[in-house]
């Protein structure tokens, strides 16, 4: 399905991201990373049929906002588990998959993270929701981009992916917003720790 240049580019880019992430790894975040990694792994098993396909929560916006760079190894490990235990995607596309999910997480962390840390109350819900939506939207764009570059026509693939992901964007925004609102109330140190 995906052509080998795409697969190789994805693998190389993921290896690079992982190297940077591990060098910058904040050991205090490992427990959070493990919990979110497990949540990501399990969330992917709960999927809802949409049209000819089905979607599940990705949680990459949430992971990026809470974990920062640590989101990259967390996502990578969870994707390995999915490929090994359930055959999702398979190991060949692991690089592309990690890139498509982790890069939006990092962008969320960079763009929305600083604003989110200064927010409170309703503003947290808003920025968290925006982060969740942005994470999924960017992932959808990157998935259709990698599909379009490989085989299928870009526009139909992108339209299909976006149509499938549209309900997910709303769900993801709600989950991320409420999760972050909750965390800021009960354990603000999870988010306010700076890298």
């Amino acid at each position, binding site marked *: 399905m995906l052509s080998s240049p795409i697969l190789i580019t994805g693998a190389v880019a993921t290896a690079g991201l992982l190297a940077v992430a591990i060098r910058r790894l904040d050991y205090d975040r490992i427990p959070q990373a493990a919990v979110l990694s497990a*949540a990501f*792994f399990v969330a992917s*098993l709960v999927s809802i049929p949409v049209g*000819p396909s089905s979607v599940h929560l990705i949680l990459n916006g949430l992971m990026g906002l809470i974990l920062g760079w640590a989101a990259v190894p967390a996502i990578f490990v969870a994707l390995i588990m999915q490929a090994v*235990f*359930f055959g*999702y995607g398979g190991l060949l596309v692991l690089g592309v998959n990690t890139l498509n999910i982790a890069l939006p997480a990092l962008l969320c962390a960079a763009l929305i993270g600083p604003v989110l840390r200064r927010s409170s109350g309703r503003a947290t819900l808003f920025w968290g929701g925006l982060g969740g939506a942005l994470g999924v939207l960017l992932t959808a764009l990157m998935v259709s981009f990698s599909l379009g570059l490989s085989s299928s026509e870009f526009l139909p693939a992108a339209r299909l992916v976006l149509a499938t992901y549209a309900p997910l964007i709303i769900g993801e925004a709600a989950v991320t917003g409420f999760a972050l609102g909750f965390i800021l109330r009960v354990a603000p140190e999870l988010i306010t720790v700076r890298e």
Partner: protein
Amino acid sequence: MSRLCLIIPFLLLCNGVAEAHLLKLFAYVEGDRIHGSAYFAGGAGVADALVTISDADNQTVAELRTDPRGTFSYPVTSAGEYRLRVNTGEGHQAEWQIHSSEFAPAPVSSVTPPAATDHSPAPQSGSVTPPDTQLARLIEQAVARQIGPLREQLQRSDDRARLSDILGGIGFIFGLAGVALWWRARRGAPDR
């Protein structure tokens, strides 16, 4: 942090109705028709998905779409190896291989006429074999019809995400986190 852990048991509870996000294809032969279905592992059929049937030389024989229940059926002209592929167009695809041995033996009509003319002095043997082979073919078809759905069911329950796999995956993740923390403690990282 500990509250976050609440998410996991909750999601595990949901798993009872959950379906894995993995596209699957299943097909079997009944007579000279290929019956099959496309579905998400442990879940509902995939409607309106593109199914491509190609032969041993990788030539596309047919392209069809699944019905609302995710099933399809296609009459093939000859027995042989077939490769079926389903593609939902947004990154999910699956394959299924049909071997020539799944088809019933070649139609009797091509074998029996010479046999019947050669053995004109013994008409009984000539007149007895065709119904026999025909009967065998009928039985084979009937069995295929009965067993096909059963095979599909078996395949589907095999594909379902199992609790042990889920727990195993979570265990691995926490184990890795433990290794990372142990590594840090061993190197005596500065306290922050």
